[in-house]
Structure formats: C-alpha cells, structure tokens
C-alpha cells in the first residue's frame, strides 16, 4: 500500500491530513507508522479530517496516512456469537493474547478466526438461481444458534459450484456464482459490510409480538414489542445497568447484543463471568451461547466508543436477516452522545444545546429507526429491538439526550432516584413511564394470556394513581384522617408496590416470572381488594383486617409461589375467603356483644 497523505495536525483523537482527492468520506485509513485505524469524517479543500480509533499519543506531523479504498467495515460470519469485541469489532481476547492485560496501539487483528474450521452444510446445488440474502449454507455456530450463511444483498446469479458438506474455514469458497455480467463470484462463509450502513430488507411488518422479559413492571405495565424501541433513563445508582442485565438474561429474544458503550470495565467483566454460568430457561444452554458483547469501556478511545453503537446494530441486523429475533442493549447511549460531542468539539463545530452538536437528534433517530420487525429477502421474519440506557446529567430528564431520545422511542422506562434510595428495584417509576405498544399488543394478550388481562391491568394502574393522589393528602395531614376505604386503597397499593412491582433480581424464583404468574398475581391482589372492600363497607376498620397478616402474605407470594405452579393461587384464594369469613364473623360477634 502506498502513502496517500501526511499528518499535518493532531488534536486528541482528531487528526488533519494533507493530500485530498484521494480520500473519500467515511473511508477507512491507516494512520502513522504504527498503522492506527482511522476513519475520514471530513474532506475539505486541501485536507481530510480523520478520527482515530486508538490513542494518538506519539503521533508526529508528517507521518504517513494510507487510504484503504473501502469504508470501515465489519466481517459478518460464524464466530461472532459468544465473542467480546471492542468498538470496531476487534476481539478483545486476541488483543489480550498479543498485548497482555493492557491494550496497546497498532494491533493488527482480524475480527473472525481465519484458522478455525467450521462444519458446513451447503443448502444449494449447481444450477440454482440465487438472489441477495438467500441462504447458501448453514453452520452450527453455538448450541443455540444455527448460523445461516447468506448471499451478500448486492449479489445474485446462478450457482456454478457448490462445495460438499464438510469442514471449511471462513476464507474458503463454499459456492461460486455466475452473475448476470458473467463474472464468477466466490461466496465465503463471511461477508463484509460497512459499519454505518443499515442492512436492507424486503418489508417492515406490524409490531404485535411482545418481547417477554419476565420483569413484571415491564411485561404487564409498560411492555415492549419485538422490533420495538425503549429507553431506560436514570441518574447514577438507579439501576440502569442492572435492568439491562436482567433484560439481557431473561428476555425471549433469540440473540442478545450487549453494547457496553463507555461504561465500567468491571461491569463488562461481571457480564463475562455471569453469562457463561447462567442457563437459558428454555434451552438449558449457557446464555453466552446467544450473546454478543461489545465492550468499549470509558477509558478506551473515544472514537471507537462512537462506532461501537453502529457495530452493535449492524451485527444485530445481520442475525435478523437470518430470521432471528435480536435484542440490543445499549448501555449507555449518553456516553455515545458525549463521544459525538467530544469529537464535534475537537472539530470546532458550532454547538447546539449544552455543547452537543446540532446533528445529535438526527443521529439518534437514524439509530433507533434501525429497529423493526421485518420480512427479509429470504422470506424469513426477524426483528431487532433496541433498549437504550440514557444517563442524564444530574439525573435531570430535561437534558438534550433524554429529550431527543424520547422523540424516537415508543417505550419509556423512567428510573426514579427516590425508589432506588428505598432499594425498590427495578426502580421504574409507574407514573412517569409509558409504553405506546399496549394497543398493538392487545390482541396478543387477549388470545395468549386472558381476555381479562387488559381490564386487570387497568385496575392495577388506577389503584396506583389513586394512591398517588391520596399520598398528596397524607403528606399534609397524615393517614389517620382518611376514611377507611381510602386507607384500604393505600394498603392495596402497598401490596402492589412491594408484592408486584418490586422484583428481586437475586432471588431464584423472583428474577424471572412468566406472564401467566404475573397475571394471576394481579388477579389475586384485586380479589383481595374486592373482599377487603366488602368488609370495610360493612364498617369494619382496616386495622382489624391488617391484623390477620393477609396483606403481608400476599406481598410474599412472589417468593412462595413457584413460577410453574399456578395451582397454588387457588390455595391463596381459599385463604382470602377464610380471611373474609373470619373477620366478618369475629366482627359480627363483636357487634353482638356491643349491643
């Protein structure tokens, strides 16, 4: 490769290069003698502006810059699942092999293992006519994921050679294709795809399948669909990362892409230690077998942090094209926005709000719009759901990243600091959060859970809202003054809060709760409310009801009732009936004695 330009300025991760005409926008370049990876982000009259994905310490003016002639690209093929990559798809394990525990610069590593032999089943034969996106072979990538090798979306043609089933590396041609222009194209196990370019599909579909997470406050109150978008904003310490981990562990997506974008190194390590040990409840295999980790921690180069979000979503789209349901956890999009701001500042661009560049909203919308439930070129259906954490400065939701994100997502799980202080986790606040997917999911809930589901849910929300109103009064005058039926609402709302909304991620039973149990829990709470109300209407004071301990018993049902054991709810109903009769009788005798 020959030199195409030379460095004339260095400012943090941004360098200025002399020698235009040879550089294209978003082209990948190699910078300096150490061949650091960079990307052209601006072409001016005589100069090109390059952001460098590694530390620029030690770069000198007039060091060479080499153009590669292609955009910064990912290698999409078997070997991605279960891997841990940095922001530009370099496997961290290989980096460790080369440079030890600290990441040094100028490491030349390929994203995929080029030596490893994969057991390939070829699914096309000579003479087949193929179009872009068609599956040509399959590889069992992990126990959980069957990798479908697809034709690059831009190619089509007639198969002229198909390899026999057997073991191949990613570099060996599996199929040779005679294209319309009479060229012979080799199809390998992997294809390259520009990191910033969305992968095409045939058509978008309606979002009407829920992404079940096993978290009660999400599944029941603020559900998200497969292909949907959600945002979890919260100040530090409110449990964003914990919530993201829970979703990554338990949601019913086929593949999870976890992007640790500008977060803590120990957290990534925690995921790496946790996930291989966690067993997927459906398949009985380790969760790592369906997970891709992208780790660009806060101390790794800022430009690679900016790219990590795109790397993550492109990998997700690739697996979507195979017909999988993929969920992306981006933790945290604020760090990504800050990386944009940092680079924008180095470019001396005119800032908009709080120093963020004016293109922040458009970048956010481009990112979130890559989610969706689609029909692929190969007629399979797949989805990409995005769940982005937002870390608002000072925990204040009016800052630009939260506000702009809110415009492009349809599901908002607001984490609340007061709840977190009281160790009420997940600290998703039921009054500030919303989901716009409820209408789309109505059918699903009706036919899969119960006709009654939406009514029950509405009643629960009403009780919580009622409680909120009453608490305003209680804060001023205390709860003693309230009439008995309002005290009852407070008591039931407490059962809902502690027994239903609060969920213990460290408890074996409570960490994941199936929809059916969620529904029964709500029904039981409402049944208790109904019975208690009847008693209160008869003039029995709430304190008498409380003495029986039935409310505390219901709070504990999340632990005491097994996730598969719906029969136990019947016993709970009987206990509520007993409680009802007992209180009624004792009160009758009390009344009799009085008279």
């Amino acid at each position, binding site marked *: 490769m020959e030199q195409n330009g030379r460095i*004339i*300025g*260095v*400012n943090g991760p941004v360098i*200025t290069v002399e020698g235009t005409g040879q550089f294209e926008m978003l082209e990948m370049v190699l910078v300096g003698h150490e061949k650091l990876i960079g990307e052209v982000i601006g072409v001016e009259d005589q100069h090109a502006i390059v952001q460098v994905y590694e*530390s*620029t*310490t*030690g*770069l*000198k*003016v*007039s060091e060479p810059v080499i153009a590669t002639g292609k955009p910064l690209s990912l290698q999409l093929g078997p070997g991605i699942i279960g891997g841990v990559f940095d922001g530009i798809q370099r496997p*961290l*394990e290989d*980096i*460790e092999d080369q*440079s030890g*525990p*600290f*990441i040094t610069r100028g490491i030349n590593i390929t994203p995929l293992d080029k030596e490893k032999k994969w057991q390939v089943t070829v699914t096309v034969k000579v003479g087949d006519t193929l179009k872009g996106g068609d599956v040509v072979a399959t590889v069992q990538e992990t126990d959980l994921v069957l990798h479908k090798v697809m034709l690059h979306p831009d190619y089509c043609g007639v198969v002229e050679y198909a390899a026999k089933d057997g073991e191949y590396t990613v570099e060996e041609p599996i199929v040779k294709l005679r294209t319309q222009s009479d060229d012979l194209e080799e199809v390998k196990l992997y294809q390259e795809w520009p990191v910033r370019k969305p992968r095409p599909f045939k058509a978008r579909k309606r979002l009407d399948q829920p992404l079940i997470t096993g978290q009660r406050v999400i599944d029941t109150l603020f559900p998200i669909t497969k292909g949907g978008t959600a945002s979890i904003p919260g*100040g*530090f*310490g409110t449990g964003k990362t914990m919530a993201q981990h829970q979703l990554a562990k338990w949601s019913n997506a086929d593949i999870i892409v976890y992007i640790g974008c*500008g977060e*803590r*190194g*120990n957290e*990534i*390590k*925690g995921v*790496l*230690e946790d996930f291989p040990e966690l067993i997927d409840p459906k398949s009985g295999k380790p969760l790592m077998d369906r997970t891709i980790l992208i*780790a660009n*921690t*806060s*101390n790794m180069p*800022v430009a690679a942090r900016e790219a990590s979000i795109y790397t993550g979503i492109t990998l997700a789209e690739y697996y979507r094209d195979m017909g999988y349901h993929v969920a992306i956890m981006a933790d945290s999009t604020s760090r990504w926005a*800050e990386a944009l*701001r*940092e680079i924008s*500042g180095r470019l001396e661009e005119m*800032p908009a709000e709080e*120093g963020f560049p004016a293109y922040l909203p458009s970048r956010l919308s481009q990112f979130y719009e890559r989610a969706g439930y689609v029909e692929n070129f190969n007629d399979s259906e797949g989805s990409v759901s995005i769940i982005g954490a937002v870390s608002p*400065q*000072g*925990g*204040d939701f009016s800052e630009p990243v939260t506000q702009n994100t809110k415009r492009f997502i349809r599901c908002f799980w607001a984490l609340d600091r007061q709840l977190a*202080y*009281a*160790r*009420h986790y997940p600290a998703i606040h039921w009054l500030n959060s919303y989901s716009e997917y409820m209408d789309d999911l109505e059918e699903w809930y009706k036919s899969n859970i119960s006709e009654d589901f939406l009514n029950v849910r509405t009643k629960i929300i009403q009780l919580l809202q009622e409680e909120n109103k009453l608490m305003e009064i209680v*804060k*001023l*005058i205390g709860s*003693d003054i309230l009439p008995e039926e309002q005290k009852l609402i407070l008591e039931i709302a407490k059962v809902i809060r502690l027994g239903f909304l609060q969920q213990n991620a*460290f408890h074996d039973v409570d960490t994941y709760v199936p929809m059916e149990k969620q529904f029964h829990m709500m029904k039981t709470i409402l049944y208790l409310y109904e019975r208690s109300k009847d008693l209160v209407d008869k003039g029995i004071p709430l304190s008498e009801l409380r003495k029986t*301990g039935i409310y*505390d018993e219901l709070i*504990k049902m999340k632990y005491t009732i097994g996730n598969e054991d719906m029969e136990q709810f019947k016993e709970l109903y009987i206990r509520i009936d007993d409680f009802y009769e007992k209180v009624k009788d004792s009160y009758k005798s009390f009344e009799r004695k009085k008279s």
Partner: protein
Amino acid sequence: MSIEYLGVKEVTGSLIILQGIKDIAYEEMVDIKLQNGENRVGRVIQLKEDMAVVQVFEGTTGISSTNTRTSFKGRALEIPLSREILGRTLDGLGRPIDGLGDILPDVKWDVNGSPINPIARLYPRNFIQTGISAIDGLTTLIRGQKLPVFSGNGLPHDALAVQIVNQARIMGDEGHNFAVVFGAMGVKNDVADYFRRSFEKSGVLEKVVMFLNLANDPVVERIVTPRCALTAAEYLAFEHNMHVLVILTDMTSYCEALREVSSSKGEIPSRKGFPGYMYSDLASLYERAGMLKDREGSITQIPILTMPNDDITHPIPDLTGYITEGQVVLNRAMYQRGIYPPINILPSLSRLMKDGIGDGYTRSDHPQVANQLFASYAHVQEVKALASVIGEDELTDIDKQYIAFGKVFEEQFVSQAKDENRAIEITLDLGWSILGILPKKELDRIDEETLNKYYKPYKKERE
C-alpha cells in the same frame, strides 16, 4: 541529540505556542529553559503543521517571547519507579521533595498508562473490612473497587479517609503486602500535613507514597498528579503484587485545573464551563482501579471530592458517579447533629457489594439486613417529612417507632468514634439489634427463616 528552539510565538494562560518546529510527537514532553535559568516542564497538547501548543505544568509566569529555550524530549511524561518509592514524598510531577535524594529507578513508566483490557480483569469480590459500620454494612468496599467520597467543604472527609487507611483489612489476608498511594491535588498545606501525621502515628508511613500538589503549587501540574500516583500504584500492584489503596484528594481541584486549561485552549465548553471530554478524562483515571486475572495485586481507589455548594448534580460528582462503582455521600446536617462519620446512607451505594457479601464473604444475613436497613431508613425520611407538617405527636404508633428507629440508627449504627474499629459481625449484630425497634411484620425485605434466627425485640442497652 535534541534540537533547542529559541523563542515562543505566543503565551496564553498556562499554554505556550511554538512555531517552526519539526518532528515532534503528540503528548511529547518539553523542557523549557527561562531567561533567568529556571527549568520548567511542559507537554505538547496540540499539533498543527509547524506549530505546537505546549501546556506548561509550572505555569507561564516569567516566560518571555524571545529568550525562552525549549527542547523536546522525544517521549511522553515518565516517572522513575522502584520499590524504594514506598515511604517517599514526591511533588505533583513525581520528583522527590523530602530531601532524601533521587529515586534510583528500576523502570520508567509513562504516566498516561494504557487502558486495561476488560477481559483481562478479575471481577472484584473480596470484602475489605474498614471497621466503619455504615461502610462495611451498607456500602461495602471491595478490593479493586473505586469508591469515591462525596463531601463538602468543612466535612470530615479527611478523617474518614485516614480511618479507612488505618483500619482497612482484607478478610483472610493479613495484609503484609499492603501499600497506600496518596495523591493530593490542590490540597492545603495543613491537610497534607494532617495525613502525614496520621500515617506516622499509625505506623504505616513506610508503606505510603505521597504525591503532593498543594494549594499554592502550579494549577496545571494537578492534571498530572493523579496520573503519577496511579502509575506508581500500577507498578506496586502489578509488578510487586501489592494490594494498593489509592487516595486521591481533592478531585474537584483536579477538574477545575482541567477547566482552566481547556478554556485557555479556547475549547467549546459544555456544562458549567467544564470541557466536553471531562467524562473520558475522569474515566482514564478512575478506570485504572481493579484487579487483573493473572496478577496478584490490586488497586482500590478512594477519590475524595468536595461537592461545590453540596450539590450532588454538579458536573464533577455527577460524572464521577457515572464512572465509579458507587459513592459514599457525607451529609452536612448529620455532621451538625454531631454524627461522625456523617454518612448519608440513602444516596450512598456500593455497586460491587452484591457480589462481595453474604455467604462465604461476610455472613449469610448481610444482604438482607442491609436491604432492610435501607428500606426502613428511607421510610423514616417520609415519616419525618410528615412529622414536620403535622407534628410528631400526631403520628401513628408505627410511625413513631420509625422515628425512634431512625434516631437510634443514626446515633448508634452510623455514628462511631474515629478510632473505633468494628468487626463485620459486630456491625451486623448492631443492625439486628436496631431493627428490633420495629415490629417483626414491618421487616418485609427479610425472609422468614433469617428473621426467626436473628430477630429479637430491641432492648435498650445499659448506658
């Protein structure tokens, strides 16, 4: 070999701009010789064709545009390191100021370090007993953690840091291989002296390396001080397998120095004038804590910062909180009530606590007790808010019990003497004894079995 350049094109704030230079590298060190013979050190922070922007650590006072000689060292800022640095006192750039002569280096390391590969880390799980109930019980410190103290001016954060250093013990490890690296940025003379005296008194001084940039030392030097301290810590931890506790104080001064340099470079500011890259910059310090899977040593960081105007949403504590693994927040009102250490446990948090306590680490009931204390104390605040409106007399009986619980909790659990060293069992038993003030059925965060084993109604201890 290095060429000497004569003259400076421009001096702005703490920066000088040189022109007509060749073949120098980004972040290279610069020696600056003044007209009066004085030597200063600088660093290249921006390159543009034949111009270089150099940050002068000792400030630019007295630098003239004509008679200043600069030469480039061809490498980034390095400090000399050997095991002998233990017990030494160095300035903010790592040069000895204790009059004991130069350090004979085994190695010289770049102070900027390199990011730790996340997969080479070892997830921190070892409980460090500090002997302070509010920390051990509720915001447990773990070896390899970065746990800052958010304080305010006039609060006893220094005393707390000293107490942690004196009492910190790792369970099942008798701590022979223990060292303290103390980095002071913009700290007052007497505060630095207080630390020194305290270390001396408790006999750990020969295990301490001090990097001092005092309040009257050059502001820009502060940007390098924590980096020197952490480089020394990395050397001790990963070359000599020591368990290093790093105390960095005061991070607020550090951030202000960062702002000063940024503004003299003419950068576009973000919140409150702090530079947009402050998050990345702070992360490059805090993320240097941790453990590696193939080394025995560890780096535990306790950065101290004073929140301007006690405001936890100020950019400095805010960004810090997003990077560190929790925070210990001191509270002025509690201090005024005579509580030491005045740790406000509600906003305090240790993120690594969940994996380092309980069975096999501390005691099996620890997570539940901690959870219950948090929940009950949070409720105390609600009751207090109510009491301030309707008066304490009007509260329900149960709420009165909460008020009593809150008072005893603050006075007996949180509060302790500056030399009181409580073992974790004592802390947990104390927690149970105070939870006994509340009726059993209020304790909804503890399971039945544990409750039966430990719960007993509160008996007022004989005074």
